[in-house]
């Protein structure tokens, strides 16, 4: 795969939307199985299991693509956590979402060539992609192959504990996804970030003027980073 310099290379966009489609499928079928009722279930239990298992296997393959892209295609650099990302980064970004975004304050961490994610994004993406997703995947596979699980883990039946962890990790990632989609509307226009993630670039030149304030340009120059003008936020 050719190494693309764009922050949104084709492989990343394929992974992102494939991941999104599969996760939504897993969420719907998982919820249907969790709250299964004696017939008629909306999907039918057996069909639900079949779709859930298939989507889960495909999601694992997509996760492998994500890991490969991060390790070998340079995407890892956007996940590097710097000291300033923690303090004051997390607080400044949280403050922006809680107050500054309403008042039209400049984004504290505008996107640049070296920075695709703001500190909060980094934190949540790292937790979700490198902690919750692996837990979700491993527990999912353990439920797919229940014979491989220890009979007892931490005083509970192994398969029961695995199910419990799988269900509530899935819930956590689902709630993250709700916030993720919502914050996707905080671009220059509600659809700007979605278009960006679909095409890899923003085709709305007018969006630049709403984002690039003099103070931001100055801030970026001070930080030695080359600003990218196509969006003001992304989650």
């Amino acid at each position, binding site marked *: 795969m050719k190494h693309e310099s764009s922050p949104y290379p084709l492989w990343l966009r394929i992974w992102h939307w494939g991941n999104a489609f599969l996760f939504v499928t897993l969420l719907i079928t998982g919820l249907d*199985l*969790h*709250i*299964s*009722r*004696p*017939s008629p*279930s909306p999907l039918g*239990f*057996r069909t639900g*299991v079949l779709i859930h298992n298939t989507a889960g296997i495909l999601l694992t393959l997509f996760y492998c693509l994500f890991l490969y892209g991060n390790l070998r295609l340079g995407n890892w650099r956007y996940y590097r956590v710097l000291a300033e990302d923690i303090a004051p980064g997390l607080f400044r970004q949280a403050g922006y*979402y809680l107050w500054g*975004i*309403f*008042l*039209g304050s400049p984004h504290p961490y505008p996107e640049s060539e070296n920075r695709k994610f703001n500190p909060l994004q980094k934190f949540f993406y790292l937790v979700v992609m490198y902690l919750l997703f692996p837990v979700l995947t491993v527990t999912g596979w353990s*439920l797919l192959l*229940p*014979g491989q699980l220890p009979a007892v883990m931490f005083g*509970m*039946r192994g*398969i*029961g*504990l695995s*199910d*419990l962890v799988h269900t*509530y990790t899935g*819930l956590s990632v*689902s*709630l993250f996804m*709700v*916030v993720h989609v*919502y914050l996707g*509307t*905080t671009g220059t226009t509600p659809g700007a970030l979605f278009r960006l993630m679909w095409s890899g670039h923003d085709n709305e030149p007018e969006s630049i003027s709403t984002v690039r304030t003099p103070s931001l340009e100055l801030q970026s120059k001070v930080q030695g980073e080359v600003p990218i003008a196509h969006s003001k936020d992304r989650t």
Partner: protein
Amino acid sequence: MRAVSTIILFLASTTWIVPAVKAQTSEKSPPCKECHQPRDTTIDLTLFARSVHGDLDCTSCHTDGFDKFPHTSTRAAMPDCRDCHTGSVSPTIDFDKITEGVKASVHAQLVDPAFRCTNCHSPHYFIPGSRMTNVSEALHAANKSCLGCHAAGESTTTEDLAFGNLVEKHRLLFHAELHLQRNACVACHTPRGEQTVHLILPKSEALKDCSACHAKNSLLATKIYLLLAPKQHAEHGWVNVIVFNNAYLTGATRNRWLDWGALALAVLVLLGVTAHGIGRLAFASFRRRS
């Protein structure tokens, strides 16, 4: 449905009507144990002593023709279980209904019109549910009756092969082997919605709706754990350990407190996102002015 057998076993243990023949003490009984030693291949006296009938004299059931050797009686001449076990012992144990169920079952209809209780229930080793330490033991005992014929073999190897064939016949189920090991055959092979485990249905009429068990009001949760759940609940607290520790059932292995907590969290997140969005809209004019 297998739960009903557990219920029967449990209640039977507490309300069992010990036949009057028990009063016949061993003084007048033939010395059965002089021949039937602990190493006897026809009956395991240790297991018999642990069974629900362990307190009875042999001659309680082995009546005429067993006082001489060789024994002259036949099985057909022996008293029937129903000679002692009659009527309704409790709301859930009605021997007359059980008899009706057996008569209507595929066993009596297609196998043997004179199908007897002892074809499935060993009178020598029958143990009530209350004496079993866990659900697995109760399931094992319940399924042993079925597998004795449906996965029969002369050795462990042939039994395993027969069980393997049985697994192949149940490929409709995900994880068929686990289902056969951890579930009671009668759960799916008796009528749904009826508290009978004796009316065994033909293969074509077996329960195929997964959600009968894989649901909040699981067929298993409401029957098989009915008697054991309160006991374990009292021992271990609020967590429904009877379900978590005895079975894994997607859709049924749920805890309502965790579910309510999850729902509350989801509602909070949705409300938060909605409020944030409304706030952005409300402040839009302010941002334009500034």
